[in-house]
């Protein structure tokens, strides 16, 4: 499923809901659209382990039932992990998203790579060139890199990248990976989870605090 675009994924979910006869609410306006909004678009080629969308229904549905009927209509590779009723006034998740945790799997992680990591974290800035409307523009993504750390396993080294994401700007995992020489294009990357602001702390939309989440992940 990582090969389909964000819009494709959205369309796929909407059509699954339609096949399941779930009464999805429509947006107001000239061209009403089903109200299903993903928290943060996922780039093509990156797998998502925990993705979220807000869904508005015209009548209350039991979460377990919704999960079951929707799952039956989804293609293999898309799994509904949980449904959660949300207060109508809670605001869209997409506006709350602060950061995303990406994991890159390196088959080998030489000493040289570790230095690159330190260099990134110690540098004042990290300039990348992004495609613009007419010409590329330079962006400093250093402020968007919250943390980088590795965890060595038996056959792979996991690189955890906590990157800012959302409407206030962010960094992309491939921008960080481009700093490493060699075949980083074929390094497998997935998005582990996304985080929203909760007072001073970052938590998953499900309510787990970032530090605990990371702790659990390091052990896994």
């Amino acid at each position, binding site marked *: 499923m990582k*090969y*389909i675009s964000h819009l*494709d994924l959205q369309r796929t979910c909407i059509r699954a809901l339609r*096949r399941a006869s779930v009464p999805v609410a429509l947006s107001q306006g000239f061209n009403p659209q089903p109200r299903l909004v993903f928290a943060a678009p996922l780039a*093509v*080629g990156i797998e998502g382990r925990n993705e979220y969308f807000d869904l508005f229904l015209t009548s209350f549905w039991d979460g377990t039932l919704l999960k079951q009927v929707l799952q039956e209509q989804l293609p293999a590779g898309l799994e509904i992990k949980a449904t959660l009723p949300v207060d109508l006034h809670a605001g869209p998740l997409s506006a709350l998203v602060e950061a995303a945790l990406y994991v890159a799997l390196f088959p080998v992680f030489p000493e040289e790579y570790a230095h690159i990591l330190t260099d990134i974290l110690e540098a004042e800035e990290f300039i990348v060139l992004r495609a613009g409307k007419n010409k590329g523009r330079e962006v400093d993504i250093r402020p968007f890199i919250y943390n980088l750390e590795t965890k060595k396993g038996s056959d792979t080294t996991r690189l955890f990248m906590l990157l800012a994401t959302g409407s206030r700007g962010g960094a992309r995992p491939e921008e960080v990976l481009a700093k490493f020489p060699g075949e980083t294009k074929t390094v497998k990357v997935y998005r582990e989870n996304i985080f929203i602001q909760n007072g001073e702390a970052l938590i998953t939309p499900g309510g787990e605090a970032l530090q605990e989440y990371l702790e659990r992940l390091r052990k896994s």
Partner: protein
Amino acid sequence: MFLSRIKRSIYLFLMEVVNIYMNTVDYQSLLDQVQKPARYLGKEINAVYKPPGDIDLHLALAFPDLYEVGMSHLGIKILYALSNNIPGVYAERVFAPAWDMEELLRTKRLPLFSLETGTSLCAFDLVGFTIQYELSYTAILNMLELGGIPLHSEERKKGDPFVMGGGPGVFNPEPLAPFFDFFVIGDGEEILPELLLEYRRWKKSGDAERRSFLRQIASIPGIYVPSFYEPVVREGKFAGLKPLLSGLPSVITKRTVDLEDSFYPEAFLVPYMNIIHDRAMLEIFRGCTQGCRFCQAGIIYRPVRNRSISRLRELGKNIIAGTGFEELSLASLSTSDYPGIEELVDALNEEFKDKDVQLSLPSLRADSFALRLADRVQKNRGGGVTFAPEAGTQRLRNVINKKITREEILGAAEEALFSGRNHIKLYFMIGLPTEKEEDLLGIAGLVREIAAVSGKAKKNKRSSFRITVSASTFVPKAHTPFQWEPQISLEEIKRRQNLLKREFRSNRKVNFTWHEAEMSFLEAVFARGDRKLAPALQKAYQMGSRLDAWSDEFSFSLWERAFRETGINPDDYAAFQPGYEDSLPWDHIDTGVSKDFLKKEHLRAIKGELTGDCRLEGCRGCGLKNCPGIQVTRDVPV
């Protein structure tokens, strides 16, 4: 930019035969390296997966264009579901690879593979191409070679698949003759099950001779095995095809399905990526009796066959339930002509009352009936309407038998704009037989009149509107009354296009678009081509010609070189003007409509005489046997 660079590098190692060392391709690793990987992914809702042990016939349904085009085509979806409904048969899809995927396959020496199981094309029993359009011919050759299948039928050996072709393009199959083992002429629903049965019988018999299978099916009505026929030349002139074996039919008659009782898919494939027509299609009838004289579809799909309202309602309901599509398009050649179209629309509206399903009605006539019909289904009326007057003067519209008047066009335009639409799209053709300067100026005049109408509407209602004028170039097609007419020369196409460009330049409301002249020329060369064109086609392919229908990939100079090097003068084909008594390269393919009728229609065209719609005014004697319309025969004024 990027793509064209790849294109050049491909020329260099093109002719190395792809090395096939396995039957299935691990294509996952390729998907990370291409644009729009969803093109090659498969696994869509309603895609079919069968356990290998259950399969005794493996069929590839190949479409010589990109996924987003092929998946918008109704025919392949019908055949996919139909074949997979037969126990033991497994049909998979294969589309043309885009440039980046082609380059990967060639550099990694991997074969072209199917979407469902990644099976290389050469490992199938049968490979069936849907042939829609002349400019897709090089894509067919590319897919064969990338798939590890020898290009020529005569080079294929035991174990190679049989390559078959079907679709509207096979009504003149001759330029493709050496590359195909056989062609299926007419409605696929009718022939395919019989053919598959025959194949399994042959396979089971243990007879491994390719030729004996071909000999067997050559007697099935509607199947044409080109290698069993040979062109006869008398006094330097083509004099028809001669069967090389006794007992072969000298004419291959198309097969027609009884539509009401025929198979129609309910489990439509639901693509992930945005394709050209991302919606469910409900084919309400097949065929058309309007009788436009340039139109090949109007001849080859005769007679008109309807599906009943009750069947359509049932199908529509099940299709939407099984796919979740938000739009259902009523497909046909001329939607307004469905008898009881209003009842049908009402019935479907009733069916989808609480379902948020948009009905769409393409191919409507340009009249107020059609507009009111469109209003019944359009939830927001802000969109546009499309009219196809085809010609700019009444005289020329009579020549082509397009039965619409200036008053009707203007009336419909006015109604469209006053009912809140803000965009009118107009289709015209240039280079039609007998076209003169005044006909071209007539296009500009008609558009100006419509612009004036919309000026009025603007004052009253809307603040903005647009008119798009699209001019294609007339291509004489086989089996039409205009098969005896030449196409105008390339220079003349450009001159006439420039004349229109000048006419519209100063009009800011009008957006004028035209088709690339060289493409229309090439289309004309192959539309009435013969077997002598096959080497030129192969040459152009070898020199790098690919998805020619995509204008950024199209290189005419390459085609010119290919023609030159194979000793072909393409003008001999595009400007071909045979006499009525001459044998034509496609005469052995029988559409059911008589050559005599086409000739009479041609003569009426030259005189500017209209021929009525046989559904409304009685049978015109087109020669079709078993046509349900014949019963209403009155006197036949042809």
